[in-house]
Each structure stands twice: as structure tokens, then as C-alpha cells.
């Protein structure tokens, strides 16, 4: 090997070493107002993050050698925000070809180059639940990621140890995608109604149960009979069986109160008890039933009326659910709303008078519970991950500004020092600074949500001269 190549390889290895080391950082944040969420508000408090974990919370803490020192006097520190419903960092979203596609997974399409990761972290968001679309009654499995901006390997942004989750969808989206395929003509298949949606669910669960029982029987027999014949492997039914075993948490796109109760009924029949209803605009109508079942809700702050099944909804949804004892989070479902989830949560103070801690819990510890990662993130406690967001001004004020965001003790956003252009992946052949148009939450609700297909969302983002189903925004 010639010397130049050798030196180059050594340099590469060194870079690799330094880079991996940077993922376990030490940070001392001094003299902040700390919004712990689970343990009240601490004034003039220091937080020490060592090796990416919150090691100490107190006053007069000393920085270990080499630790980053952050003077947070006059600033607010809160746990990194968690978005329980996002579609950033994905290269595709909807396997809209069958009412049940449990076998597909967002794990295979995770894209660490997505600028949405950086932009979300500029809003204090450190964890996103990136989800399959809502075309199918049982869609694909989702992925929980950490906003480790700069990573280039999809595996480097996964939230290690987060439970598996899967997307379900009820109501207008699956009935339109499948039941009104070819305008309800010969291409249409079940479900076209909410009745059909229930039966798709029941069949999938029953087949999964029988599959699981067949394998259990085989495994029992195989221990004594080497000639036992295994059942035919079926990835889709494997996933259904894992749901039945409680190994996969369900996150179900839903709107109407009746369909929400329907799913709790089906799950009750199959002994599945971990469910978060996503969007759930009418969850407030059945809040006592959700509390009784132990179901959670992840809702919009105030989106409504973009389709018929959200016409009879209210911006007081989150407050009613919280007051009825339902674990509730506020999510974005949008590459714009996820940049100001602190503001979305703050609206629950106008719409229902929630306290500061209640409002903040809906973007921190509550979504953490819904994703099964509450032992790791969602509050500022010793032993939890060093995921924090620092704000100028109280994060629930309209005048707040997120200024610093850390993931595992690594700075991923710095308002003062970041470059304007924070892309990691730039197409060298692309025209410099091409106008792409701005995206609002409204674009998302009115185009993506409507066709249950993120493809059209991309189109609305960047290609304003493509025709839309109906004109949104401008």
C-alpha cells in the first residue's frame, strides 16, 4: 500500500473516531430556569450532562474537563420536545396497495439527510415518531428517531431500545383509498365503510391469532417430534402476532368518536391494551371510554374542517382529554408545525386553561409514554438522556425563541452560530438557491391528508405549478 493511501486511511479512521466520540458529550448548563415537567420548575439551576446522560441537577455544579459550558442565565431549559406523529426523514410513506400491510416498515426508508430533522431541532424537537401513512387500515411499522443532525447512516438516528410501533388508520382515508378505488367501480375493495374497516381489523387479528397459535403448537411439538412440520412463514401475520404478544404499540389514525370506540372494542376482544389514537379529533366525545380503556390520544392543537370527519371537532379537545384523565400529546404531522410544537402546546392554555406543566407534558413526557420511551426521555431527571432545549423566554409564550438544542449532550442547533444553509446533502448539479415555495401546516392538512399520500405533499412543497385537487393557500 502506498504511503499516501495509508495516510488517507489513517485520516479517515481518525475522523471516524472523533465523530463517534462527539456522540457522547459532556455539557454543563448553568443558572437556568429548568422546566423539569415531572418535578416542577427549578430556578437558578445547573444541569450537567455526562456522556450524553443527565448526571446532575443542582446549583454550583462544576464542569468536568473538556465539558461544554453554557451560561443559561435568564434562559429556560426544558426536556427535548417529542413529536409523536411526524413524516420527516422518510423517503416514502404509504404502501397504499392493500388494506393490511403490516409487514412494511419505515425502518427501511429512514433518511438521515432530511433537512426536516434540522428544522425540527431548531424548534427544540429532539425525538420524532416517523410514521407510515394512513392509506391502509393496518399500515406499516413506524420508527422512532433522535434528531442526530449530521449523521449519514440511517442506523445512527434510530432511537435504540424504543419499542416497535405500527400505524393503523380508520375512517375516510382507508375507505377512500380502497373502497372508492376506481371511483367505487370494479377496482374497489373492502373497506368502503366504517363497517368494512372493523371487519378488516377483525380478520387481521383473527388470522394473526391463529398463526401465532399454529406456531406455538408447532414449537411445542417440535421439542419432542423432530418431524413436526412448521406453519408457512408469513411476515404480515408475524407482525400481527407480535401485536397480540404486546410487543408492538398501536398508533391509530382516527377521527370520529364511534370508530375510536370500535377499535377499543376489537382490541379488548383480542387482549391488546396499548393503543394511542392519533389525530383523534373527536376523542373528546368519548374521553371517559378512553380513560377507562387506558387508551392514549395524540392530537392537533386546533386543526379542523379540512375534511368532513373533522368538521364537528373543537380546539378544546386536548384540554377535555387531559381533564378526563387521558394521557394526551400534541403532535405536528407536518414539517412546519413540528418547528413550533411549544406554541401548539401553548394553545391549550387559550383553549381550556391548562397549566404550564400540563401544557408542557403534552409535548414531552406524554408522547414519551405513548412511544414507550418515558424511562429515557420526556423530562429533566438524573439518568435520562441529555436531550434538552434551551429557550429565550418561557417556551409557552408567543415571544419565546428556541436558541440551543442538544441530543444526547450533542449540540444539534445553535441559533447564534449555525450557518444559514444547514444541508448535509447537496446535489452538486442542482441550481444554487432554487425557489421551492414555503410550506405551512395548512398545505399539509389540505393536500397530503386529503389524498393520504405524502407524494402529493412533496409536490405541493416544491412544484407550485402542478395542479392540485383543489387550490390551497395560494
Amino acid at each position: 500500500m502506498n504511503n499516501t493511501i495509508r495516510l488517507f486511511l489513517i485520516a479517515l479512521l481518525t475522523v471516524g473516531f472523533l465523530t463517534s466520540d462527539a456522540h457522547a458529550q459532556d455539557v454543563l448548563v448553568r443558572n437556568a430556569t429548568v422546566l423539569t415537567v415531572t418535578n416542577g420548575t427549578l430556578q437558578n439551576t445547573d444541569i450537567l450532562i455526562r456522556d450524553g446522560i443527565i448526571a446532575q441537577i443542582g446549583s454550583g455544579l462544576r464542569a468536568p474537563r473538556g465539558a461544554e459550558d453554557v451560561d443559561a442565565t435568564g434562559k429556560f431549559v426544558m426536556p427535548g420536545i417529542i413529536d409523536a406523529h411526524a413524516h420527516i426523514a422518510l423517503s416514502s410513506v404509504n404502501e397504499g396497495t392493500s388494506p393490511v400491510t403490516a409487514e412494511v416498515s419505515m425502518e427501511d426508508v429512514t433518511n438521515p439527510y432530511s433537512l426536516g430533522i434540522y428544522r425540527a431541532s431548531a424548534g427544540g424537537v429532539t425525538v420524532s415518531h416517523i410514521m407510515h401513512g394512513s392509506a391502509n387500515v393496518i399500515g406499516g411499522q413506524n420508527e422512532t428517531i433522535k434528531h442526530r443532525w449530521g449523521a449519514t447512516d440511517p442506523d445512527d438516528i434510530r432511537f435504540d431500545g424504543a419499542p416497535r410501533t405500527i400505524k393503523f388508520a380508520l375512517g375516510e382515508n382507508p375507505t377512500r383509498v380502497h373502497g372508492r378505488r376506481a371511483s367505487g367501480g370494479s377496482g374497489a375493495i373492502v373497506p368502503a365503510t366504517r363497517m368494512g374497516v372493523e371487519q378488516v381489523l377483525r380478520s387481521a387479528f383473527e388470522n394473526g391469532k391463529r398463526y401465532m397459535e399454529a406456531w406455538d403448537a408447532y414449537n411445542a411439538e417440535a421439542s419432542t417430534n423432530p418431524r413436526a412440520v412448521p406453519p408457512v412463514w408469513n411476515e404480515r401475520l408475524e407482525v400481527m402476532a407480535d401485536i397480540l404478544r404486546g410487543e408492538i404499540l398501536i398508533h391509530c389514525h382516527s377521527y370520529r368518536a364511534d370508530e375510536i370506540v370500535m377499535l377499543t372494542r376489537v382490541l379488548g376482544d383480542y387482549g391488546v391494551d396499548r393503543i394511542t389514537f392519533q389525530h383523534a379529533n373527536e376523542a373528546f366525545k368519548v374521553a371517559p371510554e378512553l380513560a377507562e380503556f387506558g387508551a392514549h390520544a395524540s392530537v392537533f392543537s386546533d386543526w379542523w374542517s379540512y375534511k368532513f370527519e373533522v368538521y364537528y371537532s373543537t380546539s378544546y379537545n386536548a384540554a377535555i382529554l387531559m381533564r378526563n384523565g387521558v394521557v394526551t400529546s400534541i403532535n405536528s404531522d407536518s414539517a412546519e408545525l413540528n418547528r413550533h410544537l411549544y406554541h401548539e402546546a401553548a394553545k391549550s392554555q387559550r383553549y381550556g386553561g391548562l397549566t404550564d406543566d400540563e401544557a408542557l407534558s403534552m409535548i414531552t413526557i406524554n408522547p414519551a409514554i405513548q412511544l414507550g420511551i418515558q424511562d429515557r426521555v420526556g423530562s429533566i431527571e438524573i439518568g435520562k438522556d441529555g436531550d434538552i432545549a434551551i429557550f429565550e423566554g418561557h417556551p409557552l409564550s408567543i415571544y419565546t425563541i428556541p436558541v440551543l438544542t442538544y441530543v444526547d449532550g450533542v449540540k444539534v442547533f445553535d441559533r447564534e452560530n449555525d450557518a444559514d444553509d444547514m444541508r448535509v446533502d447537496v446535489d452538486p448539479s442542482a441550481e444554487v438557491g432554487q425557489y421551492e415555495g414555503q410550506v405551512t401546516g395548512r398545505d399539509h392538512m389540505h393536500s397530503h391528508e386529503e389524498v393520504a399520500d405524502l407524494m402529493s405533499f412533496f409536490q405541493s412543497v416544491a412544484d407550485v405549478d402542478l395542479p392540485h385537487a383543489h387550490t390551497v393557500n395560494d
Partner: protein
Amino acid sequence: MNLFMTLVLALTTFLPQQAQQQDDKARQGTYAITNARIETVANGTIENGTVVIEGDRIIAVGENVAIPESARVIDGSGLHIYPGMIDSGTSLGLTEVGSVAETNDTREIGDINPHMDALTAVNPNAIAIPVTRVSGVTTVIAEPSGGLLPGTAAMINLFGYTAEQMTAGAKSVIVQFPAEPSGDRPWWAQEGPDRRQERYRNNMAKLNEVFDRAVLYNQIVSAYEADPTGKERPVYAPEMDALRPVLSGEVSLMVKVNAADDIVKAIAWVQEREFPNVVFSGVNEGWRVADRLAEAGIPVLVGPILATPTRSSDRYDRAYANAGLLSEAGVSVALRSGESENVRQLPFNAGFAATYGMGKEAALRAVTLGPAEIFGIDADYGSIEVGKKANLFVSDGDPFETSTNILALFIDGFNVPIDSRHLDLYQEFLNRDEGRLQPVEILPADN
């Protein structure tokens, strides 16, 4: 204590006579709101003052004003009075449910529709109207959309039962300025760059032809009107007729334009054609050419503010900062939410603009007196001054703050109840089963 109870208490304590009437009807009358902090917008802040309303007008404002004997007195101690907010770009009232085509009246067939009048299609009873006004937004521009000239936008007040009762006077003919495609074809685009360029050039040519014809039509019709003798009466062309007041400046031309290059072209276009009364709307990249806009003296309706940057290479907060940068450059700025059912986001859009460089005072102006001046209705709207329309609200704080509650609302002098479907559902479902003796079991599967 929950918000609803707070509202009920607040209303019953400071509107005693209203409460005694036991009805929800919006009523005009003589009202005096006393001891409140008054944000006049036109003349600074009165820390402890009174506003007197009679009929549809404000008849007195100040620290020491005589309260008419007939006035219903509202004790505004510890509360704030603001002029009703104005949203300079919405489709409120034109659409009810986004995905249900039958409930959408924003887009007419064809490309050239200046004669399509938004005021005609606004549904005074749209559910979203009360949902909006209880946030303190009392007045909005309702816009048609789609095509090159989508129609005529209308300024409406958010209370009334007919178009005549709702109109706030101003109208504006919309031009969707063609956007020149740039760069390579994105991977999802169906058309190549040549086809998109061709379509752009065709649209530009069509736009110019429309206005060339409008000028000619105006000359012919004006000549006929001046002296019809011996002339054949010109054929009626409704779309050309609708452009006559734009040429005279009686009605403004609202040019929708966003990308920096397109804004520059649009400035040249309106100057070349010498339109007397022009505003630009959208203006996402206005900050890039703020000096050009300032120099041209063209007011802008900016928004939505809560949006991503227009380019991947741009700083993450550009959309938040756009209005402030334009304002700083000396451009006259009003804000728009671009919303339909969620126009109640306007104060939050203004709050973000304020935070990211515009400042509270300029942001408040951009949703009150600013748009009133731009649309020439500042004699009636936009500030708390004697003689203006009584469009105002009473709050327990800064209306941009999410924790603030709007406690009372006046539109055209009507004391409009703080009520909406969203509040009604809250009231019904917060403690849904409190009247029920036995809990209900979920049905077993075989039932």
C-alpha cells in the same frame, strides 16, 4: 377554574345588564367600557380610560369622558381594549369543509375571472366565522383563488346576516402573477423544464393580453359613455368591465407573487402598466428584494408567517422574519394568515412576526391600522378613535399571547357573544356524563 367558567364569570360580572336579558343576541346600543387599558394603535396607549360606543360607532375615547346615562357600563378594570384585528388574506366564508367540493366556492371555471365577486359567495353563517371572531379577528379579506385572475376579493366584517351587513367596503381584484420556473425538473415533476417555461411564457402573454384588452375596452366604453350619439353600443364583456375600476384606481389590484425574481418582474410589470392602486400579496421572499419594494412604494400583504423557508439553503426562520425585514426596509406591511377555518391563527402569526424582528407595535399595526390604510378604509377601521366603527375587543392581556382570553367583542357596534361551536362542544363534553347515574359498559363483541 376552567376557561368556560372564567368566561361565564367574567361576562356575568362585567356585563350585568346583558346577563339579565338571558339571551345570546348580538345587540347594538350604547356601551361604555371603563377603566381599561386602551391600545388605540393610532394614538398610543391610554393606561386607564373609557371607550363609549353608540350604534355602530365609537363616540368617545379617553381618560376622562362623559358616560351617557343610557350606556351599559362594562367595568374593564385590569382588562385591555384593542381594535378588532384584520386578516389581509383568507378564504373564510367561501369554504366550509376543505375536502368536500360542494362546500367550496373559491374557484370558478376559467382563468380570467375578475368579475367573480367573493362577497357574493361568502356564507354569513359559516361555522368558522364565530370560531374566528372570538379570537379578536373582526374583519378579513375573503379571496377567490385559482387561475390567472381568480376574482375579486372582499373585505368583510365577521358579523352579519347578509353581504350588505358584512361588507367592510374594500374590494380588490386578484392577479396570480405567473411564477417563472427555475432550475432542473424536480424528480416528482411531471413536466420537463421546456414545457414549464412554455407554459410560463403563455401565461405572461395571456396576462398582458387581458390588460391590453381591458385598456382598449375601457377607452371604447368610456367614449361611448361620454357621448353615445352615432356610436354602436359596445358589447358587454363582464371580465373587462370588472377591470375598469382597477384601471381607474378605484379598486386595488392585488398581485399574488412570492419568489424574489418574480417580485422584481411584478414590480416592473405594474410600473410599466401604471396601475394606480396596487398591493402585493404572499411575498414569501419579499425580504430578498425589500429595498426594491420600498423604492416602488408598493404595500405588501405578507403571510402566512408560520411557514418553512422558501429554499432549502435558507436560514430556518426566514418566513418568521420576512415581515419584520420588509417593515424595517420601509415597506408598508399588513399580515395575512392564508387560512380558511383557522383564521384564528392570525394573532399567532403576528406574534411570530413580532418575535422574529418586527416588534410588537409594528406587528399590531400590521393587523389593524396597516391593512385599513392599505385598503383605504382607515376612516372607518383599524384603530380606536372617535368616529370609527366600533370593531374592538376586550381581553385579559396581549391578544398575541396564547394564554390570553378574549372576553368581549364588538363588531359594527354589536356586542357579539363569545360563543362558537368549539366552545359549545367544550361546554357539552368537558364533563360529559355528569348527569348520568350509571356508567355505560362497552358492548361485548357478539352484540
